[in-house]
């Protein structure tokens, strides 16, 4: 109950005209950097940071977090409209969002994405309001074996989705792992698979792979078919947006399930990317319309977006309480906290409750403001698709390459993006699933690090993965999910005679 009192006080702090104006400005700027090539939330944050030094910390963090929400929404927009995910966590949104846009349902896809993202974020914030103390303590129980178990769980719930050829799924995932291994190895402190090339020192960036595989690869397919965007003639009116809002309750199961997954992955340090993939994987497995996934199924947009934002917002609390940033954006924000004279850590809650609860209150308000603002921009964004393809096509290509360059300012990445583009085209045409490659690239080296750290701790004994209740539960859950197709087959065979005898 104490938390609610603090929260009400927080609302009192956050709900002033000045702060709401800051939220709108922040969200608009965030959408801008989220949609623009090569820019992301970190750019926006580092641009705003100097401005915020003259503000009081509460106003400053409201501005920065609102910009962060805006950038997340902007990232989903490009995923759906152009198949170019702005952030790793919006990759799963492309699976069904882009097909929907291609079929002329861009407005519907965007509306669903924004609303479910807002819903997920809200659930995440409610969770940290109610359980703030517990969440911070719970996160402390995670060490390397538990991290590994969480990553394993994310893989297990997603694996086997391809469905075409198991060999091709394995090739795709294996390549993802191999790409993730390139560069500096944390555990041994040595360089791996760089073959003496300076360009590979810092590894192969996940974003380059995504820009190539999704952005350029997809354009090649579109061009080859001689297709144009089918969305061209689909006029978008605000009425379509309103109508889609009405369909939201239909997805309540997916919304709730994805929120739970998102919150869980946000608190355990699995992160938003793992959350969105896991949520998509489970949504597909549990759906009655499995075949429709990947071809423009609305639930395939709702599930990853909800989980992504639920994880993103619930992860902010461990960050503040533990002082460990979960992403580049969070890192820059934490740098800001220190410059404002605030030390992230367990004491922040006790020393500066006005700041913490002002922030949490601003997460409620900021998300609502963000959803309202982005919904009104949908007709604007969807109308981009009406630009003739001879203009928008090459501009998307340019956007892809500018984005590839700005990831790290390396010219080599332009070639890499081109190579990934070719690979994406080939893979897509030959029915290699691309998603496992992406997931392996994001989580591969983290999972490997966690595994090897665990082995150092246990002196090479695998028993560490059953050494306490938490890690044992996670690993067992992962194993069940991984072998679910096999298990369900066995179960079906075992139960069938019984049911027939019962009916007989």
């Amino acid at each position: 109950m104490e938390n609610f009192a603090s929260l009400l006080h927080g609302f009192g702090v956050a709900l002033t005209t000045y702060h709401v104006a800051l939220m709108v400005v922040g969200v608009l700027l965030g959408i801008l950097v989220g949609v623009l090539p090569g820019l992301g939330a970190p750019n926006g944050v580092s641009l705003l940071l100097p401005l915020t030094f003259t503000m009081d910390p509460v106003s400053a963090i409201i501005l920065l977090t609102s910009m962060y929400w805006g950038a997340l929404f902007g990232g989903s927009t490009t995923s759906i409209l152009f198949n170019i995910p702005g952030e790793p966590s919006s990759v799963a949104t492309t699976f069904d969002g882009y097909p929907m846009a291609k079929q002329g349902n861009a407005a519907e896809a965007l509306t669903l994405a924004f609303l479910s993202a807002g819903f997920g974020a809200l659930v995440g914030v409610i969770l940290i309001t109610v359980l703030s103390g517990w969440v911070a303590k719970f996160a402390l129980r995670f060490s390397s074996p538990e991290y590994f178990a969480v990553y394993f769980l994310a893989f297990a719930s997603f694996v086997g989705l391809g469905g075409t050829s198991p060999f091709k799924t394995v090739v795709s995932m294996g390549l993802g792992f191999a790409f993730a291994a390139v560069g500096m190895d944390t555990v041994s402190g040595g360089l791996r698979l760089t073959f003496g090339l300076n360009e590979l020192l810092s590894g192969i960036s996940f974003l380059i792979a995504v820009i190539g595989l999704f952005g350029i690869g997809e354009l090649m397919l579109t061009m080859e078919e001689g297709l144009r965007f089918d969305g061209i003639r689909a006029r978008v009116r605000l009425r379509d947006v309103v109508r889609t809002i009405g369909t939201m309750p239909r997805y309540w199961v997916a919304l709730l399930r994805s929120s739970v997954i998102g919150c869980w992955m946000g608190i355990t340090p699995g992160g938003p990317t793992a959350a969105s993939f896991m949520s998509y994987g489970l949504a597909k497995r549990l759906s009655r319309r499995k075949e429709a996934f990947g071809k423009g199924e609305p639930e395939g947009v709702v599930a990853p977006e909800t989980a992504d934002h639920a994880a993103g917002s619930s992860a902010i609390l461990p960050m503040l309480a533990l002082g460990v940033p979960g992403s580049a954006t969070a890192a820059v924000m934490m740098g800001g906290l220190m410059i404002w004279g605030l030390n992230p850590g367990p004491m922040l809650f006790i020393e500066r409750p006005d700041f913490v609860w002002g922030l949490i209150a601003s997460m409620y308000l900021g998300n609502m403001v963000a959803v309202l603002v982005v919904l009104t921009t949908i007709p604007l964004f969807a109308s981009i698709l009406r630009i003739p393809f001879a203009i928008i096509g090459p501009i998307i290509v340019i956007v892809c390459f500018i984005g590839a360059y700005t990831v790290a300012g390396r010219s080599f990445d332009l070639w890499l993006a081109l190579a990934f583009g070719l690979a994406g085209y080939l893979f897509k045409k030959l029915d290699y699933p691309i998603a496992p490659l992406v997931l392996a690239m994001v989580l591969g080296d983290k999972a490997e690090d966690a595994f090897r750290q665990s082995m150092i701790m246990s002196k090479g004994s695998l028993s560490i993965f059953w050494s306490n209740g938490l890690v044992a539960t996670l690993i067992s859950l992962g194993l069940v999910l991984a072998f679910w197709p096999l298990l369900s087959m066995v179960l079906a065979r075992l139960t069938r005679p019984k049911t027939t005898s019962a009916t007989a």
Partner: protein
Amino acid sequence: MIKKTSWLVATALTVVFGAAAQADWKPAKPVEFIVTSSPGGGTDNFARMVQSIIAKHKLMEQSVVVTNKGGGSGAEGFVYTKVAAGDPHKLTFGTNNAYLLPYVAKLAYKPSELTPVAAMALDEFVLWVNGNSPYKDAKSFIEAAKAKPETLKIGGSQSKDTDQTLTSLIEEATGTKFIYVPFQGGGAAGVQLAGGHIDGNTNNPNENAGQWKAGAVTPLCVFSPTRLQGGAKVTATMGWSDIPTCKEAGIPIEQFQMPRTVWLPGGVPQEAAEFYADLLKKVSETPEWKEYIERTSQTNRFLAGEELKRFIAEDDVKTSKVFEREGWIVR
């Protein structure tokens, strides 16, 4: 070794001749600050602090662009600097990794291919244990490690980097053996210690300050010749200056500190190096810099020119001895 002496001779010569030259060089275009860590890292905070002070006090006419090149533990940034030989508009920010990295990994640059400009601060290392652990001082911790060799776990940032070097030094000085667990960064090592998953870490004061305040971790000793500055109490009973030096506490290590260094590419005019050394000296005299040093509990020490070269040479010899003993050196 021959390479090293010839480098020292060469730099000594340039200093002699450079001193005669007029220090009237000025940057002609925006200066790029190359940060050899990812955003949010210690080096990143350092470089952005310098940038904001230069901007605030208008210490330079040209603007500053900061780029992060933290790949390969910072090697990416140093290789980038090497390739930019002769370009005096690229200033690279690092630690002692600038001259230590090439020992442990096969890299396409040599320290002699960079021009040292200044060291602006020395970051301290503290031995920490979990707040609820039975060890109240360094002695009891070392005793416990001696009683059960290779069971106590010390966490740190990265592998074959400062934390693991220090762990190795402690092992040598006290005849103990720990299990060293490398994490992504000091922050992660701090959380692992607070959660009781490891037994100790050697984090910088700044990395553990928050957890200490909350009582989740306890400092045992600091690897510095003198105690830390800073009077205010952090917890109810202790402040930074109440942490004994490790020598006092019974670990015979005189000093282990990490310099925050600034470099130029090789082959730049001597006047350029002097210009930046002078600029950074001005930065280090501002109140904002002092505030940053105090907040992060580092030691304020500005080194440039001969003094810097001597410091680097000493640190290089001392650390490479550890690398040699541990067999980390790649050839």
